[in-house]
């Protein structure tokens, strides 16, 4: 596969490189940065006076960081490659459905990791197909509702911090709150009297098992392939958001990290256990006074953190995992880290904030595959291993009564 756009003109020095070679380079760069950290933090150096050495280490670290960035950049491709394939799909759908569809692309030059781009097509295809197939009305219905006969799908991409946000927006009929809520209640996602917020309700269409073939036809069809989308988003460490207004259309937003190779993390310690948390989910680090922590005996014995008048639920990692991490009878953890999640903020107590580093991610395989609320293992510069927390699933899990399944 080509990693650079094919220019027929004098190609400005572009060359084709196989993605295997680039992956190999990425692996080596990862190992290089680990060995550098290991060397620099070697215990043999303890107590030595190393003025020149420290200066050299500083330079070395800067270079490694740049090599990392350059290697990551090698694998970045414009998201337009994926968008163009989708455009062809929409032409095909126009013929099949007899609908007129105008497809607009915005931000096609947004760069994204080739590995991510390769996996985006299928889930995006499902979203676009659902928009074209079921979201957009036929020409007569549209005209009757005072809309232009031609339906419109806008596919857009933009980089937001270390994430790329890809949205698929249509101006169709929107999701039916009534039908989805009915189905969600049948499936037990909500209680009979519960009236969930729209954002919370739309989310259930991605829940595994929510969509079945028989509901597709009476659910505006938004069901097909949503499980696939959900699974891919989890694998890519992405998030999905849905917004819909009856009669005006639906917007599905995918938030995906630009690169999968390195992750900018804060390292936390709780007892003898290390955790890494992607830096962009941390909204606050606090050293609470005792009166700012409030225990609630009712329910499952929860605890709240009072921050500037608002109450934030405290999510204890040792309770969540059902694994004691600190000696019994330890004083309360001195630090609370507040994570921003789609289910609202949560405060996680830890003993210590250790460091901020670019970590190399290793997937959880084999015996570790069932560890909950984690993206993988992070190899730290010290040679230690930290568990990378998936704060979304941590928050969702603890909201459901947390802990043991």
């Amino acid at each position: 596969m080509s990693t650079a756009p094919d220019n027929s003109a004098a190609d400005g020095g572009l060359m084709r490189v196989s993605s295997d070679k680039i992956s190999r380079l990425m692996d080596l760069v990862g190992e290089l940065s680990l060995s550098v950290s290991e060397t620099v933090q070697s215990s043999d150096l303890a107590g030595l006076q190393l003025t020149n050495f420290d200066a050299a280490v500083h330079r070395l670290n800067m270079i490694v960081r740049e090599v990392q960035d350059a290697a990551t950049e090698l694998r970045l491709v414009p998201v337009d490659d994926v968008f163009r394939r989708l455009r062809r799909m929409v032409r095909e759908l126009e013929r099949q459905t007899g609908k007129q569809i105008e497809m607009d692309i915005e931000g096609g030059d947004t760069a994204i990791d080739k590995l991510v781009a390769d996996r985006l097509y299928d889930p995006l295809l499902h979203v676009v197909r659902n928009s074209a197939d079921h979201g957009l009305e036929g020409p007569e219905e549209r005209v009757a509702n005072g809309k232009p006969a031609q339906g419109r799908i806008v596919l857009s991409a933009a980089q937001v911090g270390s994430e790329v946000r890809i949205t698929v927006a249509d101006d169709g009929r929107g999701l039916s709150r009534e039908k989805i809520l009915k189905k969600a209640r049948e499936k037990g996602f909500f209680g009979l009297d519960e009236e969930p917020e729209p954002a919370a309700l739309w989310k259930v269409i991605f829940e595994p098992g929510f969509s079945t073939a028989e509901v597709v036809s009476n659910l505006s069809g938004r069901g097909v392939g949503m499980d696939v989308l959900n699974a891919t988003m989890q694998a890519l460490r992405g998030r999905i958001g849905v917004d819909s207004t009856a009669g005006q259309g639906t917007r599905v937003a995918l938030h995906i990290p630009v690169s999968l190779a390195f992750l900018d993390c804060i390292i936390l310690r709780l007892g003898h256990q290390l955790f890494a948390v992607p830096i962009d989910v941390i909204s606050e680090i606090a050293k609470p006074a005792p009166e700012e922590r409030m225990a609630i005996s009712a329910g499952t014995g929860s605890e709240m953190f009072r921050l500037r008048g608002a109450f934030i639920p405290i999510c204890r990692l040792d309770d969540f995992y059902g694994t004691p991490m600190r000696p019994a009878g330890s004083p309360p953890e001195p630090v609370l880290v507040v994570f921003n999640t789609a289910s609202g903020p949560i405060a996680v107590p830890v003993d210590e904030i250790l460091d901020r580093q670019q970590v190399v991610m290793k997937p959880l395989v084999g015996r570790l595959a069932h560890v909950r609320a984690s993206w993988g293992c992070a190899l730290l510069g010290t040679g230690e291993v930290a568990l990378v927390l998936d704060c979304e699933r941590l928050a969702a899990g603890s909201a459901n009564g947390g802990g043991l399944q």
Partner: protein
Amino acid sequence: MAQETAEATRSRPDGLPLGEADNIEHMYLTFALGSEEYGVTIVGVTEIVGMQRIMPVPDVPAYIKGVINLRGKVIPLMDVRLRFGMPERAYDERTVVIVMDVGDAPIGLIVDGVSEVLEIPPGQVDRHTQFGRATTRPVIAGIGRIGDRVAVLLDTSVLVSDSDVSLPADMAA
């Protein structure tokens, strides 16, 4: 220590060439748990290392003691004694980790000490289906006879799975 053990494994003590394609499946790495001798097929064994610094991991059974970082690879460690419900024993200088790939995923088995690599032809392996539960695949693949000694040969894919493999009471050391 770790180095020596690994060497011993590679240059076979009995002088037979290692890696002959036709009998590698009949080669077993034997190790001690208490007074008993166990064996695993050497297919999949990548190396044998001394005990390393274990970093704990939450949300795993107690017999998964944590992970080690082996030259940039994260390897979960299973204490085979705990896996079989045998009493825990403090790790000492003889304790070793057998690192192997089982079903494409790495795992390290913590054992009391490795003994040797042996060829045990199928004719010297007694396969008894009554070991383990009848409904599930047994963790014991067979009993290998090596002269006047025996080694309990383990099915590594069952060993690393979630299934209950506690040994019958009379077999636990």
